[in-house]
């Protein structure tokens, strides 16, 4: 439908430049979101309003009715431009995760792992590190950071090791973006690029998992070294730490055993159905958005009388941001802005699958380190989708360059991804000092190693 609405038409170059300026301004505003004290949805919403108005004034937008099976449908011009499948995945998943977390399942897992560490800092770091990656992959990286970060703060406080909190939270923040690479639904750039490239859930997992495993180990090892996180030495220390973490009761948050097990089964079923959505009859037609919304709704049955509480908890800022972003990108397509950027990108793509893909990865990483990786991923996915050689090839290294670059670039700065921002917020909540510059200085070695290995991995093993 989007393609239908974005047929190439003649646009004055000056008009294209005007809209390019608008896009740059929007990206800058998103980069300085914290400084201008405005939510993403408001920033992008405002740009959507201006873009639509100017797009109409310059006669760029198609106001014709949409014809589906001989039926004319009259929709506002900004509605068809929105990728409703992505919106449905995000809304459904967030409802599903929110309700499932009420079962006590995630806190149960988190506390079980804490107890399994016996309070030893190194074991705690390893277990929390892997938990962060798995939670980022199965839930989403922001929720993963919230769960693991808050548990880290509480357990280190209990163990009397708050001096290590900064290191733990920073490593976990960096690992959310590594874990965000594991599956197609682990991060929004994955969903946008993966669905555009027609990469199946299973293929995505098979390609990404070796890299994620190796980088998780490397990141944890580097973290333990840099932050001097060492194991307990004496038997007395070990006994005391074991006793302290033993005081956690993993069953405390479980209100109903039935709902706990129901949540566990539904979580496995959710991952299973999402993983096989591309091959399951009917489901493959309905798409992952349908799956996410269905699972969210089934979980809500437990709280049917108070479902409105969960609607209130939905991140409407994020959803509004997406909807508005798709509108802006759609207008930019009509204004030939993406075509203009695509021409520039084509020069990089023409450098071939090695140099070109490497450059795309690096560019995507740098760009997503200073601004939101979602518009970047959406824009690049749209541009790559219009390249005939790449569009039909889910194994093209260019898709993976965007995926790796957009995810890992978030580790270069504290504003590079929502989950590192959450990590920094928790750090500040506990009155630990971490400036923008110190974050960059501290995270740089990890990000460089991760990006270097990602480039090597994409160039050597993908495509």
């Amino acid at each position: 439908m989007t393609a239908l609405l974005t047929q190439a038409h003649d646009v004055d170059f000056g008009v294209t430049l005007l809209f390019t300026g608008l896009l740059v301004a929007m990206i800058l505003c998103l980069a300085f979101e914290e400084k201008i004290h405005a939510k993403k949805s408001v920033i992008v919403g405002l740009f959507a309003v201006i873009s639509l108005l100017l797009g109409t004034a310059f006669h760029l937008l198609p106001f014709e009715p949409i014809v589906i099976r001989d039926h004319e449908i009259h929709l506002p011009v900004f509605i068809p431009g929105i990728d409703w499948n992505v919106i449905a995945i995000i809304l459904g998943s967030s409802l599903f995760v929110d309700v499932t977390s009420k079962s006590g399942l995630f806190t149960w897992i988190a506390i079980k792992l804490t107890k399994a560490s016996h309070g030893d800092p190194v074991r705690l770091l390893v277990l929390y590190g892997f938990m962060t990656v798995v939670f980022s992959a199965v839930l989403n990286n922001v929720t993963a950071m919230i769960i693991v970060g808050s548990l880290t703060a509480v357990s280190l406080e209990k163990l009397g090791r708050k001096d290590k909190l900064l290191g733990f939270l920073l490593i976990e923040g960096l690992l959310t973006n590594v874990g965000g690479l594991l599956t197609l639904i682990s991060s929004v750039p994955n969903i946008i690029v993966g669905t555009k490239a027609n990469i199946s859930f299973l293929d995505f997992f098979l390609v990404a998992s070796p890299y994620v495993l190796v980088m998780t180990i490397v990141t944890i090892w580097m973290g333990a070294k840099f932050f001097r996180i060492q194991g307990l030495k004496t038997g007395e220390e070990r006994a005391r730490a074991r006793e302290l973490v033993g005081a956690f009761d993993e069953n405390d948050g479980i209100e109903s055993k039935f709902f706990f097990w129901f949540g566990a089964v539904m979580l496995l079923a959710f991952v299973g159905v999402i993983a096989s959505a591309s091959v399951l009859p009917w489901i493959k037609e309905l798409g992952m958005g349908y799956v996410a919304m269905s699972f969210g709704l089934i979980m809500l049955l437990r709280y049917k009388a108070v479902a409105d509480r969960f609607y209130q908890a939905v991140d409407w800022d994020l959803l509004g941001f997406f909807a508005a972003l798709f509108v802006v990108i759609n207008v930019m397509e009509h204004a030939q802005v993406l075509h203009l950027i695509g021409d520039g990108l084509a020069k990089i793509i023409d450098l071939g699958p090695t140099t070109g893909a490497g450059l795309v990865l690096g560019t995507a990483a740098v760009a997503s380190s200073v601004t939101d990786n979602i518009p970047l991923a959406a824009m690049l996915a749209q541009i790559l989708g219009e390249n005939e050689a790449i569009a039909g090839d889910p194994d093209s290294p260019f898709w993976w360059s965007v995926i790796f670059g957009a995810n890992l670039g978030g580790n270069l700065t504290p504003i590079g991804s929502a989950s590192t921002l959450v990590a920094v917020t928790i750090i500040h909540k506990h009155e630990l000092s971490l400036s923008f510059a110190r974050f960059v200085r501290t995270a740089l070695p990890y990000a460089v190693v991760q990006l270097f290995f990602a480039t090597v991995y994409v160039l050597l093993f993908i495509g």
Partner: protein
Amino acid sequence: MSKVDQFESVFRAASKAVYHLDAPRIRKVLLVTDFDAKTAEHFSYENHQFLAVIEAIEPDSVTWDTITGDEYANIADLLERVERHKPDLLLTYRHLKSDAWKWPFSLGEYLDVLTQAAGSPVLVVPHPSEGGAMPHAVSDTDVVMAITDHLTGDDQLVNWSARFTAPNGRLFLTHVENETVFEHYIATIGKIPSIDTDDARESIFAQLMKEPTDYIESCKGVLDQSDLAIEVLPIVTIGHRLETYKKLIEDHEVDLLVMNTKDEYQAAMHGLTYPLAVELRSIPLLLL
């Protein structure tokens, strides 16, 4: 970022205070009286019977000393003598060297100072001259009640209470939340539009009750496994504390009440304890 706080709350709630049994050793008991030597001896004999529990584990392991009325003339004298004895437990009564025991409005200057200045717990028995002790009290300690407005994590209170509970006796671990304070806070919350008052009332009350309940469960688990052979019973409630405690003591025919007196923020006796110690004159009190 409210979700970070939400999850931190979940994890904090899951982190529970665990009770550790560390039964206090009582080797020296010092009776502080204002009697002459003969009456003091009789007083000592009566209390040997009452406190048989402290020798139940290790018979003949406790030394009993007595300070008689002619051994001290003022508080400084008394404190000096107590310091010289270094007792593990002081045993005395209200209004030493005074007849103010006839008016139930204070503890008397000696006891006031002893509870705060002496390093050891003070066991206060009903005044021997008053004759108002409850019939079940002062004969044994098979019903002991630990009282506080903050039981969670107070191992010391539980340990002393368990130590004084006679074999096969009952130990009530009680936590009475101050209803007046609770209602005051809820009334304040009722004036804050961003907080749902009913939700706050329900959640705060549930959490206030849950913490001591969980802790008592922990105490019960440990004490049931110990060789003390006592039954641990929980009482967690909300109410007007003085009234509630008076009723609990009557209902359960308590032989000994155990409570904290030290307050790290003030030199005087712990807020709840003073009125209780003044008013509950008919049963023995162990003041920690």
